[in-house]
């Protein structure tokens, strides 16, 4: 209520800013990197399945492509976990956890699904990883007072992602 009044005043007259300045990387947090990494994991699983359905699997081209898909899947599953850990460790504060008590469970689930996505080609687990990171993203943007929207990614596998509604 009072904040809204001040917000209105700010819009009309432009209140001066006082910077609680941080050095990089402070303030530069965005779950989109983790979201895209998780999406990449699903894409790699799709490519792995597609390749596995072709040929007899003994030629060098097959092994080369399969090796690359698996390596990228590994890398991005780990990257998704790392990005969430950074936001979790550096940005999320006790106040956020009080307001969003489900955060602990969500982060733990991301770690588990991220590991499963590295270990296996379980597409269902990878899709679940995308969705649980979406839930994390919704909370992340909510802590900044920014609304979110859901839209299908404009590239394969075109799963639904959460984006800030800026």
């Amino acid at each position: 209520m009072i904040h809204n009044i001040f917000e209105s005043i700010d819009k009309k007259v432009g209140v001066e800013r006082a910077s609680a300045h941080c050095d990089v990387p402070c303030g530069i947090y965005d779950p989109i990197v983790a979201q895209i990494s998780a999406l990449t994991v699903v894409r790699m699983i799709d490519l792995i399945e597609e390749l596995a359905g072709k040929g007899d699997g003994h030629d060098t081209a097959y092994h080369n492509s399969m090796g690359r898909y698996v390596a990228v899947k590994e890398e991005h599953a780990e990257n998704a976990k790392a990005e969430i850990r950074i936001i979790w460790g550096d940005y999320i504060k006790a106040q956020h956890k009080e307001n969003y008590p489900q955060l602990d469970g969500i982060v733990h689930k991301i770690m588990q699904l991220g590991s499963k996505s590295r270990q296996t080609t379980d597409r269902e687990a990878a899709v679940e990883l995308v969705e649980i990171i979406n839930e994390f993203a919704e909370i992340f943007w909510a802590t900044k007072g920014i609304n979110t929207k859901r839209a299908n990614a404009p590239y394969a596998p075109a799963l639904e992602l959460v984006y800030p509604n800026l």
Partner: protein
Amino acid sequence: MIKVLKVTGDSLAPDYQEGDFVVALKFPFLFNSIAPGDIVVFRNADYGTMIKQVESIDPVSGDLHVIGTHPYSVDSRQFGALARVDLVGKVIWHIKNPR
């Protein structure tokens, strides 16, 4: 002198966060000296108008050593102590951005 300011940046999180408003008053300094723990607004030649917490006060010069609560905070550890002349005011009212 009274001043309304809007907070940007996260160096005083979680207490003061991006989008919060503060009301800073300079007059109390005449009657009530600043104490460690107070939140102050000041001018800095490189970073402009800033808001930080007073960590300590030089007993001789009265200069203020200000810090943020975030490990990456840019504060007196980078730009040194703050002269009183650069003070804009002491925060007397904090209006939090409801999240």
